[in-house]
């Protein structure tokens, strides 16, 4: 190899590396609010380990798992996501069981295992919108929650209070009768799964 070709190759490799690492930094801010399936690794780990096979969506009995096209950038193309207002997760944990790549870790469908390991996000109540906080007794979100009294409890006039154990399945957001929804999941993309 000539010295000139070698130097040119080196420069080209440097440019590729630089742009690639720039891309890695740029993909940290998601442009829309979405959840990853229950048991998913943190966002950057998830993207580098998900092989985009689509089996999690194929096994989901609730059809809540959708796939990104290009709306969240090239890096998360074809990865699974959940929009809780459209269809929320019922925590059946089948996606983790079938995931071959370990991007969604398998956990038992048992309350403590789910509370400890599923960190999709956390619900937050908008007290200005919530009917119960406006004096009209509602309590729909409390009834929709699969972890009643563990993840959410109700106070006076069935006002919802989200507790620490909330895993962010989104069933409360799905069921909220207010438009726009008064309770919504704040996604936790930096979660650490053991």
């Amino acid at each position, binding site marked *: 190899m000539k010295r000139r070709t070698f130097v040119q190759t080196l420069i080209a490799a440097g440019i*590729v*590396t630089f742009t*690639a*690492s720039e*891309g*890695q930094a740029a993909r940290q801010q998601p442009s829309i609010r979405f959840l990853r399936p229950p048991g998913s690794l943190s966002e*950057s*780990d998830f*993207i*580098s*380990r*998900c*092989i*985009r*096979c*689509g*089996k999690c*969506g*194929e*096994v*989901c*009995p*609730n*059809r809540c798992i*959708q*796939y990104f*096209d*290009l709306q969240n950038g*090239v*890096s998360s*193309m*074809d990865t699974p996501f959940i929009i809780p207002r459209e269809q929320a997760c019922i925590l059946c944990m*089948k996606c983790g069981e*079938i995931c*071959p*790549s*370990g991007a969604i870790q398998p956990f038992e469908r048992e309350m403590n295992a789910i509370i400890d390991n599923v960190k999709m996000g956390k619900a937050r109540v908008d007290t200005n919108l919530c009917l119960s906080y406006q004096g009209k007794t509602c309590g729909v979100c409390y009834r929709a929650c699969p972890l009643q009294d563990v993840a959410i409890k109700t106070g006076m006039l069935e006002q919802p209070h989200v507790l620490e154990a909330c895993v962010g399945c989104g069933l409360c957001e799905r069921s909220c009768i207010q438009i726009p929804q008064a309770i919504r999941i704040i996604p936790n993309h930096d979660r650490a799964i053991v």
Partner: protein
Amino acid sequence: MKSTVVILQRHLNKLRWGVLTVVFGMLVLLPFLHLYQTYEAAHAYDLLLPGEKSVSDSMEWLTSPFINDPVEDLNKLKGTTWSATFFGLKLSDPLAVVGQISAGKIIYLPFLLTALIPVLLTILFGRFYCGWICPATFIYELNDSLATWLRKAGLPVSRRKLDFRLKYLVLGMGIVISAFSGIIVFAAMYPPAIIGREIYYAIALDGFGAGMVFFLMTLLFDLMVSRRGFCRYVCPGGALYSLLGRFRILRIKRDATQCNDCAKCNVVCQFGLNPLRDNFSQECNNCTACIAVCPTDALSFTVNVKDLDYQGPGHLGHNYRQKQSKQSKQAR
């Protein structure tokens, strides 16, 4: 003189088309089964639309002899050729494992083991995946027939030849870009993975995604640049299988005593190899098209680790007989 085993190999190509059709059919069927499962899980048959009801009914008719509880039992059969769950056995494409190791810089053992069976089979049988299973091959071969028709109609269909080694460069670059960006780029540029996904999106979700554009581009590439060009020169999976199957034990061999130099095998070979000159190399995907087309049954599968060197012209051909008569004249 010819054993029945050799003659029966002529029909392997039909068997191969059967296998390809079954695999492609399964890719279409599985999303419908998934829909049926979700309808069953929702216990809402009466609320379905007429179209959804017909899907549910037909899938129930199809599966009811084999299973009791569709919601649970049908989970044994999931996925695509990229990664599948097959009656409890998880199988993955070796390229997916290579991609994950390079992008995630991690060796996840349960995932590594899912690629074990495909890797072993590839070491034994070479690029058989490309010829016998790959759902993209099904479409590419139909596309190749289309190219033949277009050619007959007088349209220009290019059959350029590039360097086979290009795809190893694509594989290497894919690994490097995956390692730097942390994204498995193979998942977005490997046709069988794209096909499996897009069929699922189209049937169970809301229509084709961006991957379909890429796949249509590869079809155009095959028509306008080179015959089966993507498989030959670009496909990173093909490159990986070629490397793994370099010392495969099942090879096609030309029997020079039966060959009549008609060169039909070279014409029919979609990978642009040269069976007439005993040149199969690691690129051969064992598709058996040359065995099927051979009029004298000179080509057959043998167990051998290396290809033969060029054996000279076929003994039934014109060149060989001329040489023989010349030699006998000299001897006289």
